[in-house]
């Protein structure tokens, strides 16, 4: 159970915190509907509107209202929406592949010391390699297009899920395992009935981290490879000096990120519900 190698920061942040026995009530915002927060955001928009209307008069800093109307007209024309569709589809595929592979391989590494020792050197070499450095290689191998985009997202989001699963499986408390064993549950039973569910909180934390990494990657790769999607849209608008549309694209990316974190947080509370108390205590 001891973690000999230094765990990654993600893994430490994601490691299952001790579950506080049911004292904290199920309180707190459920789906992040936060009137005060929205009021502040709206106020900020008004301030920026006033500033850009008066003091800041650069052509490259459009007023929020102009960005808003550009967004609406672009949505009407469908250009930005098809970009959004491409981006979301690549995002989901990449994150899905990363989650599938990361959980399976992480669990396998956690289950077998031999496997861990075998793969460790390669893993430790590949993990710190910035995934964007692999984009040229990926373009040569897979060509420009959604395959490269998906592959890069999957590659970058794979590591947090892999490591969190590994440490989750490894970090199962000895008593949890001994309990099952004392009832005559065998090795495979302990693995599937105790270690995997115990690791779920840690896996969920890995997925949460990867969900934001995947968004960074999808936009970056689309910008670099000019292969469609919102990233490409933003670059196209920049080159055309259509700053309102460019900001509209950026705003949309921000909105996606916000919604993703809401959805992931909601799913996490549903799927690994027993971890809610510790997360509230931990104040992540």
């Amino acid at each position, binding site marked *: 159970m001891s973690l000999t190698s230094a765990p990654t920061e993600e893994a430490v942040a994601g490691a299952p915190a001790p579950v506080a026995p049911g004292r904290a009530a199920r309180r707190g915002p459920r789906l992040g509907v936060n009137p005060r927060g929205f009021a502040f955001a709206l106020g900020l928009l008004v301030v920026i509107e006033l500033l850009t209307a008066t003091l800041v008069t650069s052509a490259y800093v459009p007023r929020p209202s102009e960005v808003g109307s550009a967004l609406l007209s672009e949505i009407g024309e469908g250009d930005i929406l098809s970009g959004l569709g491409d981006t979301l589809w690549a995002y989901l595929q990449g994150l899905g592949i990363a989650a599938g592979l990361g959980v399976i391989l992480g669990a396998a590494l956690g289950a077998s010391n031999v496997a861990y020792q075998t793969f460790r050197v390669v893993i430790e070499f590949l993990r710190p390699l910035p995934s964007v450095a692999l984009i040229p290689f990926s373009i040569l191998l897979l060509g420009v297009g959604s395959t490269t985009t998906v592959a890069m997202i999957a590659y970058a989001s794979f590591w947090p899920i892999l490591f969190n699963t590994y440490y989750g499986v490894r970090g199962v408390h*000895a008593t*949890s395992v001994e309990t099952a064993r004392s009832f005559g549950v065998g090795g495979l039973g302990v693995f599937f009935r105790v270690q995997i569910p115990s690791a779920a909180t840690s896996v969920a934390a890995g997925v949460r981290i990867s969900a934001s990494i995947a968004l960074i990657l999808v936009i970056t790769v689309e910008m670099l490879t000019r292969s469609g999607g919102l990233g490409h849209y933003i670059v196209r608008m920049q080159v055309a000096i259509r700053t309102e549309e460019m900001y509209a694209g950026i705003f949309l990316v921000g909105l996606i990120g916000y919604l993703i974190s809401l959805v992931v947080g909601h799913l996490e509370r549903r799927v690994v519900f027993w971890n809610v108390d510790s997360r509230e205590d931990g104040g992540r």
Partner: protein
Amino acid sequence: MRRRAGERHVAGDGGDRTGILHVEELRKRYAPDTPLVCDGLSFNVNQGEFVAIIGPSGCGKSTLLRMIAGILSPTSGDVWVGGRRIDGPPPEMALVFQDYTRSLYPWLTVERNVRFPLAKRRDLDKAEKAERVAEAIRTVGLTGFEKYSPGQLSGGMQQRVAIARALAFQPQILLLDEPFASVDALTKEGLEDTLLDVRDRLGASGNTMLMVTHDIDEAIYLADRIVVLSKPPCVVAEELSVDLPVPRTQVESRSHPEFLRIRAYVHDVMGLTDQRRRTHGGPQPSA
């Protein structure tokens, strides 16, 4: 050898494997070149008996119980259950751990936690499993909490769930590893009484219990017999019967002269075991 004390007390029933549980010359060393944790432990538990094992903290009590439960292999020595030498967790025993927060599975409801040891059993049909689970939950007084998550219950209730789970397994011997060490004093009294009730209800086939504790009062209140372990590496320092009248109740039993006599005696044994043997007669163990 340091086994003198152990030998003396085991001599009477050494080699007697007819008891439901017989522990023979158990030794445990976790790794080569580390000190022994247990050094030749032997004792017997008879059918229907409640035996408490007490010893100073760190003396290897939990190690001993894990070896008896078959989840830890002894370096040498044997554990016999019902005349059979065990080589792994035997189906005749269930173990209740001190740390209920780890021992219960937070992703399962109370009901499913209790069902856990039965879930993959092919010899029981669904209705039998459901009946056993319901019965076990009723026995510990948690009817109505079946659908709760362990995290929604208090510590004492969680430990009741762990006891119910062990009961659903229907062991012949219930092993308890400091089961009430993590709950407050009042909750502890309630749990102790629940355990006595459970024992009364179980009848002759399943009321054998072996508990490890560092709480002398608890051991006297619950047990028929007490096995006192020495400082590490642990051996049996003393065995004594608890001749408190039954039924036992918290107030009366704990103020009974016999209770106080044993209490003083065990304190003495645990504090100055070796000196006491040389210099001081003390009351004789009646086991």
